[in-house]
């Protein structure tokens, strides 16, 4: 390998320092990473801390009195969907409610940010050959990995700091604010470490991201079980997001739990560095295998789409099956909560009994599944952009394949795949729930209806991504921004008491709450029509514009 150093012989001292300096060049790489990630990190930092700050102020102004907050906490504790999605409430102070409302979600988002940043600046650079260019310079072996982790960890720390400042500025206790911010930062650190490890395992950046994402999803699911299933509380300890709950900011402020984050992230980064030294640049621990010398079945653009999408769809399907199993498993215990509190039982029985609780729980988790399915649909639509950016589209379009023909396979996976995921989720939820209540048809009916009612808004999100890709492929981040807004509106809209006009912008707002409610076909059909129109507009855009 050639180096980019000057050809004149360097003094021996300098040479030995270069050879042993694992982190030589770290400063330059940090600046490079900052330059490359500045926009996306800025969006993450501002986005997450703005949500935290506005939640602090919303709860302060909407629930000023202790009695009001206690009532809110009471109604929340009665709702198992809230427990599954957000965890238990640690304290009924303003800070405690805020920590409950945003804690698990913000920690997961920060984890996602850390994963994207670390994989992007390690394995993705390596896959494209940029790492080779850097490593040929005076750069230590671990410098790139460490630089990526530092950038991600630094961004997580900054978010934590801003969250703490937001809490203190709203008059929340200093210890609690700092504990919450530190827990957020810690969660980011742990997943930066997870991503650092998965980046060593495979040559493919997508696979590395998927592996780290699976750990993040598992962390979320494990704590959901721990938070909802009576007697399984210990499971919180198995998940970094569970640790955020365990820190119990503004409640008991378990500062010692923060040590877990620090120790785990350091251990993970250490493991990644060891793995890094056991492999060659550009290769991975799991080596790529040889493929078939020819393949007579690969005869159409659809066959190519199958090859490009099947891995990711399979991964998502596994995730949705797990999600469905947990949803179905917890749903039946939604009724158990009544047993804990006679007053609660009285209220709920007046509302219609435990069945109402189960319905509400399934509807809430369905809304969640809708957001996740939209994330799949958007990523599958934008896969076309990835293909185009890598210049793998022009060789296809230079054959007798038209643009619509090429695109149809990708769209089939993006939209059809999302429907499939929701249906799978519904079936698994239904079977598990049905088995637990001993009534399979009722279980299946409830599960399927809860998930499938999410199809129209998911199609709209996918259609919107298609419009962006068709007309303005460079702005593809807007498709993700739309999902981010839908998430904030859907999960925080009520708490923040956002104006209805704003909430109405989200396609999720207009779907009836099912099961338990009455199905209204008009919004369903209107949304499906809008989705079809969006797809058509996006396709028209791609047919008109230049292809790179």
């Amino acid at each position, binding site marked *: 390998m050639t180096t980019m150093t000057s050809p004149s012989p360097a003094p021996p001292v300098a040479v030995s320092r270069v050879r042993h300096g694992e982190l030589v060049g770290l400063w330059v790489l940090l600046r490079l990473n900052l330059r490359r990630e500045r926009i996306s990190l800025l969006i993450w930092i501002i986005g997450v801390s703005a949500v935290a700050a506005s939640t602090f102020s919303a709860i302060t102004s909407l629930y000023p009195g202790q009695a009001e907050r206690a009532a809110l906490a009471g109604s929340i504790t009665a709702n198992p969907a809230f427990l599954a999605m957000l965890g238990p409430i640690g304290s009924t102070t303003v800070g405690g409610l805020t920590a409950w409302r945003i804690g698990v979600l913000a920690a997961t988002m920060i984890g996602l940010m850390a994963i994207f940043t670390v994989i992007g600046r390690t394995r993705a650079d390596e*896959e494209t*050959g940029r790492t080779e260019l850097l490593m040929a310079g005076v750069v230590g072996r671990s410098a790139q990995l460490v630089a990526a982790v530092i950038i991600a960890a630094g961004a997580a720390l900054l978010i934590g700091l801003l969250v703490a400042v937001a809490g203190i500025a709203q008059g929340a206790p200093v210890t609690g604010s700092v504990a919450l911010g530190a827990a957020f930062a810690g969660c980011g650190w742990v997943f930066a470490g997870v991503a650092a490890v998965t980046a060593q395992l495979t*040559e*493919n950046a997508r696979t590395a991201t998927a592996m780290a994402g699976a750990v993040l999803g598992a962390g979320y699911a494990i704590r959901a079980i721990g938070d909802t299933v009576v007697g399984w509380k210990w499971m919180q300890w198995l998940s970094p997001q569970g640790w955020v709950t365990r820190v119990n900011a503004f409640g008991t402020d378990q500062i010692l739990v923060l040590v877990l984050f620090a120790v785990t992230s350091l251990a993970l980064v250490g493991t990644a560095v060891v793995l890094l030294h056991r492999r060659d640049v*550009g290769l991975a621990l799991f080596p*790529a*295998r*040889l*493929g*078939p*010398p*020819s*393949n*007579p079945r*690969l*005869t*159409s*653009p659809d*066959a*190519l789409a199958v*090859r*490009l999408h099947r*891995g990711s769809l399979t991964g998502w399907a596994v995730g949705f099956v797990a999600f469905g199993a947990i949803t179905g498993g917890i749903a039946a215990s939604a009724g158990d909560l009544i047993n804990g509190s006679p007053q609660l039982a009285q209220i709920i029985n007046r509302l219609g009994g435990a069945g109402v609780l189960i319905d509400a729980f399934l509807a809430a988790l369905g809304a969640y599944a809708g957001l996740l399915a939209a994330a799949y649909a958007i990523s599958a639509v934008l896969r076309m952009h990835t293909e185009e950016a*890598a*210049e*793998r589209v*022009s*060789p*296809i*379009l*230079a*054959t*007798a*394949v*038209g643009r619509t*023909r090429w695109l149809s396979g990708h769209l089939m996976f993006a939209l059809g795949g999302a429907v499939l995921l929701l249906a799978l989720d519904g079936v698994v939820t239904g079977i598990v729930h049905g088995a637990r209540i001993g009534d399979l048809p009722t279980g299946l009916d409830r599960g399927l209806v809860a998930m499938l009612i999410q199809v129209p808004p998911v199609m709209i999100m996918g259609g919107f991504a298609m419009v962006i890709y068709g007309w303005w492929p460079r702005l593809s981040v807007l498709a993700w921004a739309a999902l981010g807004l839908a998430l904030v509106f859907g999960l925080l809209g009520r708490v923040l008491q956002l104006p209805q006009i704003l909430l109405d912008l989200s396609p999720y707002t207009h779907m009836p709450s099912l099961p338990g409610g009455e199905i209204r076909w008009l919004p369903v059909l209107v949304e499906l029509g809008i989705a079809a129109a969006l797809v058509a507009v996006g396709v028209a855009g791609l047919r*008109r514009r*230049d*292809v790179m």
Partner: protein
Amino acid sequence: MTIDNTAVPSPADNISHTTTKASGAVSTRAGGDPATAIEATGVVKTFGSTRALDGLDLRVRTGEVHGFLGPNGSGKSTAIRILLGLMRADSGRARVLGGDPWTDAVPLHRRIAYVPGDVSLWPNLSGGEVIDLLGRLRGGLDVRRRDDLLERFELDPRKKGRAYSKGNRQKVAIVAALCSDVELLIMDEPTTGLDPLMEAVFQDCIRAERDRGRTLLLSSHILSEVEALCDRVSIIRAGAVVEFGTLTQLRHLTRTTIVAETRQEPVALSSAAGVHDLVIDGSRVRFDVDTGHLDAVLGVLTGAGVLSLTASPPTLEELFLRHYSDQVPETPADGDDPSAAISGGRHGVARFSRGAK
């Protein structure tokens, strides 16, 4: 090395279009001139404030290997993308095989194979799968021919994506293009990264394609390759074709370097037309002479009594360097400069200007 020139499609193969190559005849759509495979007139393409193509004129005759040359960033790839219907020209007219490359993209592409300059493969597809895929998407591929090409290019089709070196990725695209039965091959710097042995195999294959009546638009920087393969050459600069003709014609535009020893000092040379960079060192003399003035200048030399003489023939490199360099070619004060000869068509070299047919 020879290539199977018979081009008999095997019964098993599944080529949907029906063109006969036996006589080199090419079927074209109604309305097109069958003798012209590619014709672009006044094509303009801008990206924001950058004018990538600025009135490009290009004509490729059916059955020829046409060299497409120009410095980096001169608009070659943009021109090729327009010819493939991947991009739409802002103005001007482009016809490929008698059709409009934008509106008729799909039917035209059954008759065209393309080799991109920077081949990007799918990370989870083997090279063999990519070859099969691209061939079948084009409408069919000749399996025997593919196997033959794989062997000749010594390509392992089982590797995936980045496991291939740059040269081997390039080979995947070349094999994919050559194993289809098409009329027009468009190649954008296809041999970058190929070793000299493979370069030779590539040249053999291209000659065989030409002998079978195929048309080839070859963008290249490798002058020996252009010299060995191309019938005619277009040189593009800043989005417009600046030079166009056969290699023999273009060679007339270059200068021969002469080093001679004469009995007397050849003082008359300093006033002779077409002489440049003259250095007289007593009886030794060294100068460049425009090829068109060679005869007269040699007369002057003979008059001085030639003792020894070395003449270095004009190289294409000189010509290209002149057009590739940023400086505008110098224009001598007298009217005998070579570019005037082009404009006047004295050597039969056409010079396209904007708007000209």
